[in-house]
């Protein structure tokens, strides 16, 4: 039912916000390097409820989380927003163009990749104008993105299978 879907989506959004906020508490050497746990929610939403729902969840997550944490409209918010929107769009495009090409893990990797690329590009244009610094950290960020993307993909898949069962 539409209504139940909406409830589900709201719940998922809440989980996403919680995960995002929790993740930001974790200390990292690089300010905006994340485990991307909230991407799990995005991916699950995308697979279960489609692009629009996933986008809504992403936007709600980014905006609410930053409001709660207090970084609304700040640099972290911009980067989260850019990364989240781009990764959602990328994942959904791949899904609609070649749905059988990648498994959940592959989709999660793509999501992570585009999320990182978008953040690097945004960081370059808005904050750090020195391309050497950006080029210097890109390999590391992409590597970590690949690793976390894989793990997130596994978790997403398990989650989906679980959710399907309970339905």
């Amino acid at each position, binding site marked *: 039912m539409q209504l139940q879907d909406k409830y589900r989506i709201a719940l998922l959004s809440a989980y996403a916000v919680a995960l995002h906020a929790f993740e930001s508490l974790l200390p990292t050497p690089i300010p905006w390097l994340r485990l991307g746990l909230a991407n799990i929610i995005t991916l699950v939403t995308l697979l279960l409820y489609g692009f629009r729902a996933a986008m809504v969840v992403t936007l709600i997550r980014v905006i609410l989380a930053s409001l709660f944490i207090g970084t609304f409209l700040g640099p972290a918010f911009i980067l989260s927003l850019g990364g989240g929107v781009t990764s959602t769009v990328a994942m959904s495009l791949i899904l609609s163009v070649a749905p059988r*090409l990648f*498994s959940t893990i*592959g989709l999660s990797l793509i999501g992570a990749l585009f999320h990182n690329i978008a953040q690097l590009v945004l960081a370059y244009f808005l904050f750090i104008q020195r391309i050497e610094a950006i080029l210097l950290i*890109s390999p590391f960020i992409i*590597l970590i993105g*690949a690793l976390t993307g894989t793990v997130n993909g596994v978790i997403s898949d*398990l989650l989906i299978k679980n959710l399907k069962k309970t339905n």
Partner: protein
Amino acid sequence: MNLKRLLSSITIADKILLYLLILLSFSGILFIKEVLPKGCEVQIEVNGRLVYVLPIEDNRIVSVKGPEGRTVIEIKDHRLRVTESPCHNKLCIKQGWIESGAIVCLPNRVLITIGNREYSNIVDAITG
């Protein structure tokens, strides 16, 4: 087990993607380790305007045009020299090969500097 089902559902595309990403990032890291410490570059200015910035690692022959004519610079084996210049005293050519520092051709308004990024980070200017 869910895990087993998941592992069997991994596609070839997934693997290719993952391997590509790992390959890309590792080679990126190695590349950066190579490039960073040396960072010597050749800067060629004509009439106060920066015309070329070249790495000293690449052998090449560069020609720049100044008010008096063409000055030809040869970069080879991490050194450079001026091989042709329209100036009267040919001082720039007489300086021969340099590994660091600069060659100036005043009449043709050409300035060639070898920047060692290490030093330009330490001092803002040099007197003497």
